């Protein structure tokens, strides 16, 4: 049992790699959320006062933060399951195309949802297709050295974003909790 746990922990990516992946996830999810908030802002400005407007923004940011954590946990779990040299060793490099590919796919998928249930086959087709593309990109980025290096450098630069989004996310979460407790 101990050996199994040790083996699983060893497969877990390093803190630095987790940080940069988290920063990428935060950037993508928060940027989308802020963009959508701005899209709805003219409507909110019609009837929300400043306090309520900030509260609504806090909900957007808090939800984006929680969503980012869920996605990071998901990547962490995949890293534990897959062999180390397949995924955890190239955690930063392959997560860049994976996150971006999933984001594009999700953004496109959102537009096709209507007022009726698409059906499981339609959903599986979409995500199966996305999975294949993302997997291919991940393989390419994982195998080709220059691409892997490029990906690593991009991730390194992106990690700065966590200094912005983590405080915003935590503060927003506190605001939401506070407003619902007091």
């Amino acid at each position: 049992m101990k050996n199994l746990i040790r083996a699983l922990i060893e497969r877990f990516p390093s803190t630095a790699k987790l940080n940069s992946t988290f920063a990428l996830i935060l950037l993508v999810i928060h940027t989308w959320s802020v963009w959508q908030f701005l899209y709805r802002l003219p409507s909110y400005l019609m009837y929300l006062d400043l306090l309520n407007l900030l509260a609504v923004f806090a909900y957007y940011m808090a939800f984006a933060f929680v969503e980012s954590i869920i996605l990071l946990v998901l990547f962490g779990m995949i890293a534990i399951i897959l062999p180390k040299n397949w995924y955890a060793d190239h955690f930063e490099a392959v997560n860049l195309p994976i996150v971006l590919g999933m984001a594009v796919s999700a953004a496109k998928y959102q537009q096709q949802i209507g007022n009726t249930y698409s059906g499981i086959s339609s959903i599986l087709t979409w995500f199966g297709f996305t999975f294949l593309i993302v997997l291919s990109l991940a393989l390419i980025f994982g195998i080709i050295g220059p691409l892997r290096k490029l990906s690593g450098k991009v991730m390194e630069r992106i990690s700065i974003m966590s200094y912005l989004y983590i405080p915003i996310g935590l503060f927003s979460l506190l605001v939401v909790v506070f407003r619902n407790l007091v």
Partner: protein
Amino acid sequence: MRHINRRDFLKLGLLTSASVAAYPIAKALESKKSGSGHILLLVFDAWSAQNVNLYGYPRDTMPNLKKFSKTATIFHNHISAGRYTVPGTASLLSGLYPWSHRALNLGGRITAKHQDHLIFNVLDGNIDTVAYAQNVYADQIIGQAEEKLSQHIPFGAFNLNDRVIYDNPLFKKDQYAAFNAFEDGIIQDGKGADASLFLGPMIREKTLRDQTIAGFNHGAGYYNGLPESFESYSLAGLVDGLIDLVDGLTEPSFIYFHVYPPHDPYRPYYKFYNAFRDDGFSPATNPIHPLASEPRTKVVLNNNRLSYDAFLASWDAEMSRFFEYASQSGFLNQNTVIVTSDHGEMFDKGISGHMTTMLSQPILHIPLIIHNPGQTEQRDIYTFTSSTDVLPTIAAMVGVEQPAWTEGKILPMINESEDKSRIVYSFDAIHNPAFGALKNYSVSAIWDGLKICYYHLNDYENWELYDVLQDPVEHNELIAQGDKRQTIMKDILKAKLDEIGADLSGIG
């Protein structure tokens, strides 16, 4: 034709105040002062008087309501102060016109200045208050009186699937911000993008799947699936919920019960779907109005009207169980039942529904039926009344003095007291900021059967005049025909607009 000069008008105005104040609803008032009964205010969303047989509609859409009304007071010319749920409900619950309460926009609610003027605040300490709204926008207005309510029944209480997030007990203390963030925001309602990139579409697909399953489990008997109000519901479930609620009340209570039917999507029972098809009734269809942004053909309008009428008949059939319960259990002997709406619906002039800036009579003319405790005969009131009158009337029933701030009047309940000179207004400013000056609005005033409309919109400005008693479908526009009464009607409206500080630039 009657000739009215300005002096006559002033005299009539003075008479108005005196006569209405002199005739409160004596019987109901006495009964309530003793603190013995409940007051049940039933609101059917998007319910036009002009599609109800009781109000002269040729189709027998609501025979059970008609039966119920045989021992009630029917207000034949009741007008909603607002054109859709937000301003309509806010006026009903505050006794204020939309220019005062400022719940103008979709998602908006009553301004801070008036948020303590909701009916629940007025009745606080005199009678228990229970509120339920199956319309999420109406629920936000109810939420403003959260602390005063004895019981606020959650939005999803009688629904069949769980889609809405804000009514989760987690957000009980901050429902309004949660509502604005989650509904149609973090999670999109209908087509469009969720602000939550990954979880949004997953949650949406799950709720749509739940909705489909609810349809399979409970949708038998409906022609086109279960009715929906953000979440699916069944007409029978709503009526069961109402009966259970009323049956379980122990203390005298004011119950606000705002249900979604007959709001669209119109989902009638199968047995009513073809009830009015080929019945020989051909609705008068007016030409397309310039404010019809997406004009519908006459065929579409008539088909939508058929569905709406069939949905009304379905709802009426289900409500018959409540009327039966109220009658058999003796509920009607000791309690007051008020049935009304927040706004109406139209199928004319190229417009289907009520999402238009036009103040058309089918949208404004709503039913109001009041059954007083033990009432045994039908009374008919033909004077024009406003949805702002409901609050002062209920306050009087409970023995609370008419609040000074209300813009409504106690409803006349005896024929002799009818106030023919009453002016009732409707106002819409959905695209005008709630906090700003009133620059982009539609307004109407009805006086002695004449209705003047003024559209002061960013892209449209016009006056319209109708004789709504003779021409309820507004077929003959009277200004175009050179009707001389337009002058005094315009003056009436201009005076009101001036009083409320609305922008009058460019007014003709």
